């Protein structure tokens, strides 16, 4: 029998606002422990939450980019449980009435089919602090860092529309791409600003009913997501095939080293969070005009951008995807295009090629690098004008990338300008021909490949600065002239 996997995701995304969501503390990752804290995010007596409007704006932005309905009226609730890094013993979250409802995101499945993954909701909440455990037993201890306490978080909940671990991964990548695009989050899984819980069940193909659902908690990398879901889908499939479907819904964890999911607790025993409306926060009332203002300020989203790249610039789907999927890359690409009058494809190749390679190597984003679109455009113009060769350009580019200097300055400093002086080159060509009688003879015997070797020798002699077209021409001429 064939089985079908059904997956729904709950994604937690930290918003990159300047301040925390309910107090004035700076929202910073990686600072000294407990240096961005105040009586509010430490849960001291009598300190009240004051909502950061920017966090609401970011949540609405995410909602609009994901086609959600923005609720004109929503509520903050207290989700209550005891944990040492949860200072008030409740997390301010949203229960029945979230800020964003519905919505969806289009993905292309591994089979090449377009498909909408519906969203159930997006709500705004606060982050807890962080616990660092050290040792165990009588000598063990735990340390608490409240820098993270009170950071704004959105939870994005999908409908159970995903049908394979691969689809789940594609969905998450797409989601990450959009959220980065609209600049509401860095979505860094390794820093915990993009985290995921997955609900998965398996049913006989064609069945309309859902199988028993397993919740897999805290999947913190794309690899973990795909491996854990694949493992769990297989496990549930085998149980069905053996005629022993799971007896209960469970919360399960993912053991990275052993490569398997493990039982944590039955779902029925899930904590009763005793949600109730937070009496310290009035209902969140959102004016329609504000939503429209935010909508108007949204950037062109990746899908729209890629379509435009293909149509307007005639780029291939693959190139459009590479250039359009990060906002910074797209903006760099477009800014360079505006400054450069040559071929679009030339710019695209440099951005996708050398630039991407160096960014990757140095683990930088386009904005973090020293290279400016002006510099790249200027360099491309120099190639077109024959001032430097394509090969030299790579050296110039690398230098621009690391030093941020304009190309002309680099070329002058390093003496990299292309040698296009015929009288200078012809002397060198004659010398090379005299030094390599073998290849000369080959050429004359009709082995035209030998010309390549001779060009190479000239280029080597000039450290790549000779104008290759000119070298070619001179070599041919001089070879003809030989007796």
């Amino acid at each position, binding site marked *: 029998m064939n089985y079908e996997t059904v997956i729904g995701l709950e994604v937690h995304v930290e918003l990159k606002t300047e301040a925390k969501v309910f107090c004035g503390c700076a929202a910073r990752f990686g600072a000294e422990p407990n240096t961005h804290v105040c009586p509010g995010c430490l849960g001291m007596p009598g300190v009240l939450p004051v909502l950061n409007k920017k966090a609401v704006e970011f949540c609405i932005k995410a909602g609009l980019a994901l086609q959600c309905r923005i609720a004109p009226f929503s509520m903050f609730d207290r989700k209550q449980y005891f944990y040492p890094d949860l200072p008030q013993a409740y997390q301010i979250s949203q229960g029945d009435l979230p800020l964003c409802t519905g919505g969806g995101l289009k993905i292309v499945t591994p089979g090449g089919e377009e498909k909408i993954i519906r969203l159930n909701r997006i709500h705004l909440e606060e982050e807890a602090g962080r616990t660092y455990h050290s040792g165990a037993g009588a000598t063990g201890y735990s340390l608490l860092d409240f820098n993270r306490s009170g950071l704004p978080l959105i939870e994005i909940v999908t409908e159970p529309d995903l049908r394979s671990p691969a689809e789940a991964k594609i969905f998450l990548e797409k989601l990450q791409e959009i959220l980065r695009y609209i600049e509401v989050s860095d979505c860094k899984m390794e820093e915990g600003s993009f985290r995921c819980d997955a609900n998965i069940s398996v049913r006989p193909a064609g069945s309309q009913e859902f199988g028993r659902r397993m919740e897999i908690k805290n999947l913190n990398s794309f690899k973990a997501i795909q491996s854990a879901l694949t493992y769990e889908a297989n496990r549930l499939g085998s149980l069905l095939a053996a005629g022993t479907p799971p007896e209960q819904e469970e919360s399960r964890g993912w053991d990275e080293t052993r490569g398997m999911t493990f039982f944590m607790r039955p779902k029925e025993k899930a904590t009763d969070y005793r949600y*109730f409306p937070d009496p310290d926060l009035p209902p969140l009332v959102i004016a329609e005009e504000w939503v429209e203002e935010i909508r108007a300020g949204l950037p062109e989203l990746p899908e729209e951008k890629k379509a435009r790249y293909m149509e307007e610039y005639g780029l291939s789907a693959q190139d459009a995807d590479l250039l359009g999927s990060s906002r910074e890359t797209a903006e760099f690409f477009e800014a360079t295009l505006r400054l450069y009058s040559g071929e679009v494809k030339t710019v695209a190749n440099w951005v996708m090629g050398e630039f991407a390679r160096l960014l990757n190597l140095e683990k930088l984003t386009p904005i973090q690098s020293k290279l400016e679109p002006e510099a790249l455009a200027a360099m491309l113009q120099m190639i077109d004008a024959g001032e430097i060769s394509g090969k030299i350009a790579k050296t110039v580019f690398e230098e621009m990338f690391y030093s941020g200097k304009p190309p002309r300055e680099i070329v002058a400093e390093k003496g990299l300008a292309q040698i296009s002086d015929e009288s200078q080159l012809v002397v060198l060509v004659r010398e090379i021909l005299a030094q390599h009688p073998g290849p000369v003879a080959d050429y004359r015997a009709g082995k035209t490949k030998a010309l390549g070797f001779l060009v190479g020798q000239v280029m080597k002699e000039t450290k790549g600065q000779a104008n290759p077209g000119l070298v070619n021409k001179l070599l041919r001429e001089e070879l003809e002239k030989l007796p």
Partner: protein
Amino acid sequence: MELSTLSLKELGNALRKKAVSAREITGAFLERIKRFNPDLNAFVTVAEEQALAAANEADLRLARGERVTPLTGIPVAVADTICTKGIKTTCASRILENFIPPYDATVVSRLQEAGAVVIGKTNSDEFGAGTTTGYSAFGPVCNPWDKNREPGGDGGAVAVAAGLAPLAISFDTGGNLRRAAAFCGVAGLKPAYGSVSRFGLAALAPSLEQIGPLARQVEDLALLYQVLAGPDPLDATSLPAGAPGRSGQEFTGTAATGRPGLRIGLPREYFAGEELQAEVKDLVLAATGILTEKDGEQVDLSLPSTGYALAAHILLAAAEASSSLARYDGVRYGYRSPEAADIDLLYKKTRTEGFGREAKRRILLGTLVLSAECYGDYYLNAQKVRTLVIREFTEAFTKCDLILTPVTRELPGRAGEEKSPLRQYQDESYTVAANLAGLSGLSVPCGLVDGLPVGVQLLAPAGREDLLFQVARTLEKAVGRFSSPFLRG
């Protein structure tokens, strides 16, 4: 000069005429606290050092004539549930026994800006959960009219009645402030919800409580309220300036002259029950007569949800308390059980040892009320009752200008008397509606029975504190003020 009996205005005049210095005033009240507090137990902490420093500062302001307000140089007692930077704030609980906040409540900042002197922190039931101060971790407070009687749930009222401070600020969750005012023979106001910032008030039931003033006379009460009230960006539930229900800032025109054609609503349900002691009822009705004798009108009202209001209040107050008190876990500050071997034991032992009986009762009840099985039956139904109560009052205020009721069912009870929890909650039968509906409620003395004060409660819609002050002043003028034995030399 005997300073303890003077009104705010009289103290202010003496200060401005340099007949006395702020330091002398604060010193005199500190002396009285030293002398009488061991018996009364109204204060948990006396902030002698800080108070004298603030008094010196006030003297400088007075000397330079800078930023002088009616409160400059005047000592104010502050409830120990209200955070004071650098001064211990225990909430009358073992769990915060040594807690010193690094911040001031907004009301405390407002007092300091006005030049007032925070003289000490007053006792109450633990986090205000109770009606008699019998649940304070630091022992009950005595009633200054009779040391064998309970004072109502607030040490601030006792401090003012006994002349240990000319003014006090405290908080009212279900009537504790108003009831204590009535039992101690002083005036007390629970302002309309959102009038006074709650920032820095260690919460028990955030949707119900407000900080309010206590004073021996209505004029002082109004002056103090004026300093406390106002919008606060640190409290999202505080009414913005100019919002409907936000009263104006000037109450100095609290003339005693009655308003022509004042319509006073008397809700039947508040007078019908046998539990209302006859002598109390008589005095309250007599007060109604005084207020309407010229050309006022008594309006017979019915508030049918009254019987459910108390139940709703008990459930909501407990639900919110269970949540508000959860943060006291021994992890970051406050009491931590020394014997806990792991985190679960740390929670259990800290909270078992740190909280007293009534706080625990509310935590348990509130946890049940908010549990998945009970939420619909208890929490949601209580919220529905709350909505009905609000509607009934809104409707009632179309027929009358204010509503008059007793504050308490009876005279102060014997100190240390054991009451069932339900009987205890019933102490607040007449006062909880103002908390549920967010109304302003003022308790003002209307007479004595067996040498013990009785209060009358005046209720007005949000934003009409001016009317309450005016009417209370009229009554005060007619029945006189009542001085506890501590103020009679």
